[in-house]
């Protein structure tokens, strides 16, 4: 592409954005609406995933040892646990530590005990890297010599992994629906815009314009519109997210699990992704729609 063709494309693309005001407004509105809805779901999903992730970090498996087990064996078991990929971290709770913690809960009643009633309750508290792998780890540990008992919460693990799966399905479903709707709407809008300029395209072709020369300004214009259509909802969402999270955090402070991801942590991914989608929708929508009119 010659440098003057490049500048011609840019110039005509920018002119086109302002020349066809209603087309521009309709397309920007369509892309903005789709990406706004997408952004809302993304922000919600990101936060729910974060809450689930926090909850998962508190799911643990507790391993108790055989009576009279040696300290060396306990250390060996610890090393065995540490080598497992399902484990994110583990810590040894000695009988003394277990009793100290429990006696805090008992308060003055604890003074009635002259010996440690949790003598055989030394254990490893194991935190999982992925709750869905809990049963796999438990099955393995059941076969390890020196382990007497394993405490686990199937319900918590199953619920959290269930939420994770639902989140993935819902999010993927929403993305697919939104993109299908936006491609359909963009295609219609671009088709309307192009049909108005069909004559212009025909004239260009009669004069000897190449397909590229005809198409490039239209495609650039649509990409520019896509970029604007994506930038508007991102700016709006960023502002609304800050507003909404501040409000909810203040009004529902008693829900301790309700912690929000900082806006920037979400938008650092969402903004470039949405801008790419906006530009991509503009490109795909215009490229194929203009092509239909190039056979002159």
């Amino acid at each position: 592409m010659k440098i003057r063709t490049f500048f011609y494309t840019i110039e005509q693309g920018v002119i086109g954005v302002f020349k066809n005001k209603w087309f521009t407004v309709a397309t920007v509105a369509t892309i903005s609406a789709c990406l706004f809805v997408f952004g809302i779901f993304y922000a919600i999903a990101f936060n729910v995933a974060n809450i689930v992730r926090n909850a998962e970090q508190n799911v643990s498996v507790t391993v108790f040892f055989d009576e009279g087990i040696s300290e060396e064996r306990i250390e060996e078991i610890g090393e065995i646990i540490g080598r497992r990929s399902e484990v994110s971290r583990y810590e040894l709770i000695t009988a003394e530590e277990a009793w100290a913690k429990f006696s805090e809960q008992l308060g003055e009643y604890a003074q009635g005990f002259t010996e440690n009633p949790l003598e055989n309750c030394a254990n490893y508290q194991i935190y999982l890297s992925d709750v869905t792998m809990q049963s796999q780890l438990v099955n393995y540990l059941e076969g390890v010599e020196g382990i007497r008992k394993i405490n686990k919460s199937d319900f918590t693990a199953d619920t959290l992994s269930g939420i994770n799966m639902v989140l993935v399905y819902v999010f993927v479903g929403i993305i697919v629906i939104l993109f299908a709707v936006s491609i359909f709407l963009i295609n219609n809008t671009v088709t309307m815009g192009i049909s108005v300029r069909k004559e212009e395209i025909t004239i260009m072709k009669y004069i000897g314009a190449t397909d590229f020369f005809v198409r490039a300004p239209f495609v650039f214009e649509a990409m520019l519109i896509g970029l604007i259509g994506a930038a508007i909802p991102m700016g709006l969402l960023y502002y609304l997210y800050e507003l909404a999270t501040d409000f909810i955090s203040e009004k529902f402070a008693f829900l301790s699990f309700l912690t929000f991801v900082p806006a920037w942590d979400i938008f650092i991914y969402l903004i470039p992704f949405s801008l790419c989608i906006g530009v991509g929708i503009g490109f795909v929508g215009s490229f194929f729609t203009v092509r239909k009119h190039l056979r002159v």
Partner: protein
Amino acid sequence: MAETKRKRREADSNISDYAIYLEDVSKTFSDGVPALSNINLKVKHGEFVFIVGVSGAGKSTLIKLLLRELKADSGNIFVNGFNLMTIKHGRIPKFRRTLGVVFQDFRLLKDRNVYENVAFAQRIAQKSEREIRRNVPSMLSLVGLAGKYKAKPKQLAGGEQQRVALARALVNQPKLLLADEPTGNLDLYNTAEIMKLLETINENGTTVVVVTHNDKLVNDMKKRVVTIKQGMIVSDAENGGYFDED
């Protein structure tokens, strides 16, 4: 059969001698209606030819074939040395830049002024801004519109719009000018002016083919006249005349 055609083509000397070379060209529309049947037409470089016929005779189809907007079903078509039966889609723009085209409805870009409409053809031909600044005003002078270069098409009369279209068609110095009913929307005065311009252009060496069903125009000009009737060439006469049967 192919051998006969080859010999005939050789007998017609080199195809490059002709601006237009049509051999046994036929075109039938998708609904089965024949538009052109076995058309043979040769137009040498520098000629001025009228193609005449009543509405529906096949004149517009012929123009579309010459522009390679349509492809013939059979036969051979060479325009300015380009074989339009085998030309690749990507080469069509290069071919069209060797042509100038003028339509009855002018087909100007409405949102651009006179200067930009003419400059547009130069931009498509990848001319530099310096060349454009030199060529466009001189072409507008030729068609008598130098003083109206800033005007938008809707601010111009029909005759003036057609002059702009002519300037646009000629600015890239085409070898062949195709004019499809160029005076169809013009009054008598403007018709005469446009025809005078076309004659001047032809005298400067450009081959001019005018499609029309305006019998007065054709008979006044005393040029070669090719008459098409029901998709066939029924006469081809130097200094010919035409009686409009419409």
